[in-house]
């Protein structure tokens, strides 16, 4: 508990510290819990509603923990031109998930992302922090096997 306080504290002294503080909490805890919202509100002298107002605007901040591995399939135009929609369908079918959902064993979260800047080698998929270019279902699954 104390650690969360400490994490947040270092950001209260800098200009516009709430965003970096949210990133730090998300990274440390895997999501922004009710407790973290209270701590953030207290540290920044905001109401809890104000903290919630900011964090719910951004896709990266989640109120619930994500799966152990987060798969982001790019759905922007360059990847569309190389059939990213079909790839998305194959992956949603394979994991039995809709976009934005997490498997019941909390292993995999499947999301959509708009542009990873890898538009020259699409379709692109990001698994955690790694981008896979010229992606297909096999590449994605074998990457997951390797990091398991």
């Amino acid at each position: 508990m104390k650690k969360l306080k400490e994490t947040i504290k270092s950001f209260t002294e800098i200009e516009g510290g709430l965003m970096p503080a949210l990133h730090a909490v998300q990274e440390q805890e895997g999501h922004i819990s009710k407790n973290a919202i209270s701590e953030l509100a207290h540290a920044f002298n905001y109401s809890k509603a104000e903290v919630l107002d900011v964090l719910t605007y951004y896709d990266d901040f989640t109120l619930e923990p994500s799966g152990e591995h987060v798969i982001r399939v790019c759905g922007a135009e360059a990847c569309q031109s190389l059939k990213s929609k079909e790839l998305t369908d194959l992956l949603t079918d394979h994991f039995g998930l809709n976009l934005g959902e997490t498997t019941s064993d909390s292993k995999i979260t499947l999301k959509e992302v708009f542009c990873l800047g890898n538009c020259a080698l699409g379709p692109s998929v990001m698994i955690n922090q790694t981008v896979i270019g010229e992606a297909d279902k096999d590449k994605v699954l074998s990457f997951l096997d390797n990091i398991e």
Partner: protein
Amino acid sequence: MNTPIKIYIPNETASNSVGAIEAHRTISRLKGIEEARIIRNGSWGAFWLEPFIEVEKEGHRKGVCYKSVDLSTFNTIDDFLKDFESRQPFDIREIDFIKKQKRIVFSRIGMDDPLDISFYQNSGGYSALKNALNLDQQTIIDKIKKSGLTGRGGAAFPTGIKMQTVSDQDNSLKYLACNADEGDGGTFSDRLIMESDPFALIEGMTIAAFAVGASKGFIYLRSEYPLAKTYLTRAIEIARKNNFLGKNIQSSDFDFDIDLRIGAGSYVCGEETAMMESIEGRRGLVRSKPPLPAINGLFDRPTLINNVVTLATIPPLLNGSHSDFSDLGSGKSTGTMPFQLCGNIQQSGLVETGFDITIGEIIENYGKGTKTGMPIHAIQIGGPLGIYLSSKMMSTKLTIESLQTIKGSVGHGGIVIFDDTVDMSEQAKFAMEFCAKESCGKCTPCRIGSIRGVEIIDRLQKNSSSKEDSILLNELCKTMEATSLCAMGGMTPNPIYSIINNFPNELIDE
């Protein structure tokens, strides 16, 4: 003693995405590797050749594309070198794709370790800043005005005029904010600078800050670029250690430092006022202008906002290659533009060239045909708020002025190729879907209009001859265009107009 062999293995998102990480892992474990020197360079921007691994022996540097090659069968460095020679290595600087370009801003990418500050300085880096610190600030602004440089982020506003406005403000504290929220689908030029030549951005920011009197800089980087974050974090530290950031830069009385801030997955935060809201720690809602950020920006202070490529253009501009840059093109389309050729195209990558080129020439000279071998059907220019050209429009010039006449824009320079399997009604629908997903929600035409747009296009997909829906779509687009607060809602109709006009019977029957 012989100079050791150098092996260049890129560490850059696109190269890594197709095997550079694995190649580096394998090569660095080969027996005898200690006799060679491995350099993690940036990418040359010829992405279809990645992972492009180069070997330099006795001053001769050649490379090979190692895509889908299993290197794990090699045990020794000699196994690798023998295999390398058998693959007909070539000098990448001699291929047409690179040779035909006019690389001024991207002159350094791919050559060496992007974090090697000695390399940066030996290749002309930081000489522009050192000169600038001895110049009158107005002289620098005048030079940038005279160069004709316009913003490369999308709006193409004259950079020098913006700098003048910030400079003219009498305020004890001014900011510089670098917009590195490169969100347009089909673009990666900012990423490539940040990953393959980060000091160019830092130097450009430092010069711009000195010229306008800003003492603090922010880089607002999108979270989808983790490798760029790593590079920038390290480059900022290295620049500080070498007195290129911090107090009394290069023994002058100029203080300037940079704070790297990370976005959180919102496209509209690439709009400058939404970006400021986000940096200040709020929802990324667009602010109405005026006041201009140059007068009242971040934390209510005068703020110079430019995108990555614009700022990285400043050092080479001031560095004697000034006329090389400004003699190219005219009007708003002066200088070079990094076009990003991607999607379904064989030779994909970064093409820095003058604006005075047709889309047909870019495809013929650099991109060649589609990856799938099918005919080209549509070309998207300028990102989600740009337009789609048909394959009959190959003579369209890529100047800002020429695209404006057909309600398009160069935007951030993205060019996405589609083959003839594309369904243009789906692309039209995506324009509205994207707006619905990414709208900040502040103004009604964008927030609600985009949802109604998706519904109308859904109906048109079932009955493309519906006069009623075709009129309704047109009226909706006109309303969004005229009444949205920012370019998100205001320009979302552009791709839809272009599909109606350039692709008859594909969304609406004539």
